[in-house]
């Protein structure tokens, strides 16, 4: 009996020891696969196909591992960084501040030398807007060494989108979307009169609100003033900012928005728009893929966020999309970079366009059978802005005060002036730390 107890105890200890040792990252094995973490459920199949094709061509194994939804993925990547267990290739969801913190901690390889320069270089494959989302200028505010830190795979734009059939039903010109905020309000009212919702969007996801607010701000006051606000030299109580918030108040007062707008997730908003319950929406170019799955007959087109001012150009969030980073501590760094180079080749990039209906970051790539509407999204890339390219990033707490405040305006709970004061208060608090 005593021997039996001892055997069981020793066995238990062995099992525990082997469990704990299995938690350690495997090292030193002869041939290691390149491991890629990603969050894109809609692109996973295409990535797996590419990995298979790569193995056939080179004999080298690449494992794409999907972690979704995106907030779960974000947390996994952070834990990976804290425990030094990041894969060979991964992406960081967030703005330049987040990317900078990964770089500072030594988790991201500087790819400037690998990308090269001039005609025929790897760098020349990409659209500048796409590649620049991973570029840190010399003497940047994050104190990150200058360089390119990622490889863009696809890019997105986040414009307004309208339903041509519903526009026609409402007596609006289906080939002429609204250009100004007032035209947008008038179009929404006309749509509402026909029994559909004028505008829907997933504004429970506050980054969409922030995207539109920064578009309107750039259009009304120009990039320099927006950056000055981020830097703290222009207050959010400035009349231009109050005018931006007032645009949302006009939207609320017009009475054509989806009543659940501020608590709708983007997926629910995509369903509402694709099922023709709403005439206009604010969504990214990934919607082409989403809408083709939900309603292949949907007749729609994108348009720039309507103008608030005339002094500065209309901007649209764009240029950034999926960016893969190479783990600077990877033991198969060269293999990882070789795979990314292969993946961003014209042939593979074209396959990704066809399979995922996303805009490619690769200049010469073109997909088969891709809806012409995708090209219309691509054309909006001119005058695009993105937080990753902002000279000064805004504190997430200030962003939250702004987006939650805009939600309050949209439910008629706060005035634009009150929201401006709240945002400025959050700004002052963030500046004092």
């Amino acid at each position, binding site marked *: 009996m005593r021997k039996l107890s001892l055997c069981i105890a020793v066995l238990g200890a062995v099992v525990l020891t082997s469990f704990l040792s299995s938690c350690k990252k495997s090292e030193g094995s002869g041939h290691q696969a390149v491991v890629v973490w990603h969050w894109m459920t809609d692109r996973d199949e295409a990535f797996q196909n590419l990995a298979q094709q790569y193995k056939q061509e080179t004999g080298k194994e690449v494992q794409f591992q999907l972690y979704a939804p995106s907030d779960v993925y974000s947390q996994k990547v952070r834990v990976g960084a804290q425990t030094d267990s990041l894969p060979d290739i991964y992406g960081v969801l967030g703005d330049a501040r987040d990317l900078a913190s990964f770089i500072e901690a030594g988790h991201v390889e500087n790819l400037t030398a690998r990308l090269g320069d001039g005609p025929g270089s790897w760098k020349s494959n990409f659209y500048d807007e796409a590649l620049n989302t991973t570029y840190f200028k010399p003497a940047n505010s994050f104190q990150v060494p200058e360089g390119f830190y990622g490889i863009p795979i696809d890019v997105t734009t986040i414009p307004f989108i309208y339903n041509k059939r519903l526009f026609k039903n409402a007596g609006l010109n289906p080939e002429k979307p609204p250009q100004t905020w007032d035209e947008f309000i008038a179009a929404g009212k006309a749509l509402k009169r026909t029994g559909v919702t004028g505008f829907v969007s997933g504004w429970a996801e506050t980054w969409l609100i922030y995207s539109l607010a920064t578009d309107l701000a750039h259009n009304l006051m120009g990039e320099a003033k927006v950056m000055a606000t981020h830097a703290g030299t222009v207050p959010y109580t400035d009349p231009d900012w109050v005018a931006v918030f007032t645009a949302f108040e006009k939207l609320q007062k017009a009475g054509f928005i989806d009543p*659940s707008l501020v608590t709708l997730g983007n997926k629910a908003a995509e369903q509402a728009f694709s099922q023709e319950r709403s005439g206009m929406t604010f969504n990214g170019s990934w919607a082409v893929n989403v809408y083709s799955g939900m309603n292949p007959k949907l007749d729609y087109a994108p348009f720039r966020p309507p103008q608030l001012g005339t002094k500065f150009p209309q901007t649209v969030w764009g240029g950034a999309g999926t960016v893969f980073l190479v783990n600077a501590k990877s033991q198969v760094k060269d293999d990882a970079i070789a795979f990314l180079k292969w993946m961003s080749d014209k042939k593979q990039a074209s396959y990704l366009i066809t399979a995922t209906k996303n805009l490619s970051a690769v200049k010469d790539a073109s997909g088969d059978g891709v809806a012409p509407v995708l090209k219309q999204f691509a054309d909006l890339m001119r005058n695009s802005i993105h937080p990753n390219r902002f000279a000064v990033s805004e504190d997430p707490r200030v962003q939250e005060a702004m987006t939650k*405040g805009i939600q309050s305006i949209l439910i008629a709970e706060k005035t634009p002036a009150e929201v401006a004061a709240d945002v400025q208060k959050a700004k002052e608090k963030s500046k004092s730390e």
Partner: protein
Amino acid sequence: MEQRAAQAKKTGSFNWQMASNYLFVLPALAMFLIFNFYPYIQVFYLSVFKWNGISMHKTFLWMANYKDILGDNPAWWKSMRNAAYVTGLALTFQNGLALVLAWLVDRDIRGGQIYRSIFFLPPILSGIVVGLIWNWIYQGDYGLLNAVLIKIGLGDLTHAWLAESSTALTALAVVHMWKGFGWGFIILLAGLQGIPRELYEAARVDGAGESRIFWKITVPLMIPVFILVSVLTVLGTMQMYDLVIVTTRGGPGLHTEVPMKRILDEITPGSRVGYASAMGVVFGVVLLIVSVVQIQLSKWFKAE
């Protein structure tokens, strides 16, 4: 075995039996230390730093995070009030309903087993699925609830239930209670079935009515179960998260913000892991105090 252990202690000789006993405990102890004790200590440690969760550098702040949470973070306290409101509703309506249904099923009604399965269905559904279903029910323009209200001539009562400040939190609480009452139901039913039937029979023989039996026999004997259910309700409700993410994401404004979401928002996208850790500590202390008060109150009721 105790004799042998005492003897070994006395003689100072090594006892294999005792050693193997400790080895049996070792895996559980190691698991506890690694997965429970160490994280607690680490959260306390991180809570006094400014740290983005990635950087190699942490800035020691001493109690600054706590000072800010306690004195200058209205959004956090709004989320605590929201969670307390939902908890209050859950303690009364959710547990009240669970008790009534458990009491009815305990009375050997026809089809009791079927009811038991039906009532336990919501808790085993994923919070995400439940949230999506109720999103559709509550939707302002094409939701089921508004459609029914219009159909029965109560069109004036329609709302965008989750998007209006006056209804959002209560609407969310209803979903939470619908999803959660099955747990209370099962525990309370088990408690009711544990009460010896002879007590009821004896009371009836003595001429006690159903109401008197309920208040004088059922309630006193169920107090330990009530304590368990209410503690679990408080802890479960205060920590609600998934339903909020699927239905409202804390909106409109801050009307459905809850503490767990605030803590996670500080980590992503806030990148303030030290501050989030301090929030976690404050939240843990609040829950601990509430649970202790609850248990003491329940003990007092039992003594009364």
